[in-house]
């Protein structure tokens, strides 16, 4: 899989970045900040996933529209009544609030999409391997077993088919459910027996006798340090701006949004665009290097 520059950084940097931007994304309701956030997150999301990610976004579009349009039915405190539905006043303020809310929701979907692409399961476990050794070992084992179990499931299906016990695609629900549960039952049998073998094998190799060491693929370099510092620095700028009241926004009953603060918005945008900038910088360097030959 092709990886972008930010994905090659130390997992701690990526994890810190995503936790920070998600927290800020949920907390800040100022429309300008939300709009800027969605643009920045969308840029990085498309960079990571390309057109495939766009399709996924289209699926969540109905939900996003529903959040925006249905908000006035739930929150009836606005002043400017547009029209009435079922004797409920449908207000402009509430509609705007709903739109901002769905923007925040979209922001979360985008960041989670980026998180999924960058923080792969191996990075997640390597990050926590020393902090929670037993749990991260558990996590690794589950991740390993799933494809294993699926393969075995297919084998069982194949074996059942060979003795004429397969279920046709257009069979009744009860028939299918019965077949599926039989399959699950025999898979369970096989998996439980295997688990004992694995556990004994682990024990005979000395599991639990000493502190477990772990194989860590990622090294914290100077570049990771600089990135982490920049993330924290810009994050502190945004938080300072929040505490000053730059991001205060109330929509209902009356529109009361703080005036735009270039400092806060600037910090926020720079923070969110860090991974994208990193990618552009590398692409540019590569381009210059190549043209120099």
């Amino acid at each position, binding site marked *: 899989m092709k990886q972008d520059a930010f994905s090659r950084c130390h997992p701690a940097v990526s994890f810190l970045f995503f936790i920070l931007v998600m*927290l800020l994304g*949920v*907390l800040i*309701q100022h429309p300008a900040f939300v709009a800027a956030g969605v643009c920045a997150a969308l840029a990085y999301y498309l960079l990571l996933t390309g057109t495939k990610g766009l399709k996924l976004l289209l699926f969540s579009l109905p939900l996003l529209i529903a*959040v925006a349009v249905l*908000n006035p039915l*739930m*929150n009836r*405190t606005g002043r400017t009544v547009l029209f009435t539905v079922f004797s409920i006043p449908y207000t402009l303020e*509430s509609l705007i*609030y*709903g739109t901002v*809310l769905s923007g925040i*929701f979209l922001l*979360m*979907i985008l960041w*989670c*999409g980026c*998180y*999924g692409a960058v923080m792969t*399961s191996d990075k*997640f476990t390597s990050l926590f391997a020393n902090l*929670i050794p*037993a*749990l991260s070992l*558990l*996590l690794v*084992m*589950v*991740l390993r*077993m*799933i494809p*294993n*179990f*699926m393969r075995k*499931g297919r084998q069982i299906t194949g074996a059942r088919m060979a003795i004429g016990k397969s279920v046709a695609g257009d069979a009744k*629900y009860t028939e*299918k*459910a019965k077949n*599926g*549960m039989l*399959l*699950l*039952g025999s*898979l*369970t049998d096989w*998996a*439980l027996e295997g*688990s*004992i073998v*694995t*556990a*004994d094998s*682990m*024990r005979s190799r000395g599991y*639990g006798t000493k502190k477990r060491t772990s194989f860590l693929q990622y090294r914290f370099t100077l570049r990771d340090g600089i990135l982490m510092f920049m993330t924290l620095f810009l994050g502190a700028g945004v938080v300072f701006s929040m505490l000053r009241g730059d991001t*205060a*926004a109330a*929509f*209902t009953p009356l529109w009361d949004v703080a005036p735009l603060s270039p400092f806060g918005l600037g910090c926020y945008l720079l923070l969110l665009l860090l991974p994208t900038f990193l990618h552009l910088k590398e692409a540019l360097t590569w381009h210059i290097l190549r043209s120099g030959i």
Partner: protein
Amino acid sequence: MKKTKILTAVSLLLIPLTVIFGRKLPGRSYYITSLLVILEIMIPFFLSFEGRKPEARELVLLAVLSALAIASRVVIPIPNFKATYAMIMLAGIALGAESGFLVGALTALVSNFFFGQGPHTPWQMMAYGAGGCLMGFLFRRGLLPRKRLLLGLFGAAAVILFIGPLLDTSSVFMMLSRLTPETALAIYLAGFPVNCTQAVPTFLVLFFLGKPFLEKLDRVKLRYGMGDMAG
């Protein structure tokens, strides 16, 4: 062991403090407050697991049960037939409430590595874990008999009344601009049909597969001398 207990106590004490402090924050900060509370509920479970230095057999058994719960979604080739809840509940019943919580939380986390992490991940970990914990508590030895009908009915009820609403609560906090009992009720009612469709496979799996599954686990425990593990 002592460190674990102190950390657990601190974590539990933090819950009311978080709620009190969270109320003072402006705007829709209740989403963050709720996330913090979820973390503070889950941390004691994780810490006590780490603290007792689990043996290899327990570790592998928990991993197998969690992996089965996730794989069951793919192995049974019927759309929307989700045996995951039933498998988590059976894990809780067989190994005790605490292990049920661990299997549930782990299942939610890992299945989201495959189906995509989202703002709902902590909520799912909490809800799945609580489901396994509740069933483990209800069906521990001596409380409720492990009859197939009882297993099925309690499992389905747990999905409709407990796990489903817990998951819907994340939508309540995420999508509502103003929290009132009526608006929250609207979200819960919207989630009700979905929860019912989830309850059907849970009932079926617990009814037909529950007893044999528990017997299989008991047999493995007996055969390999893991009797002290049962909760």
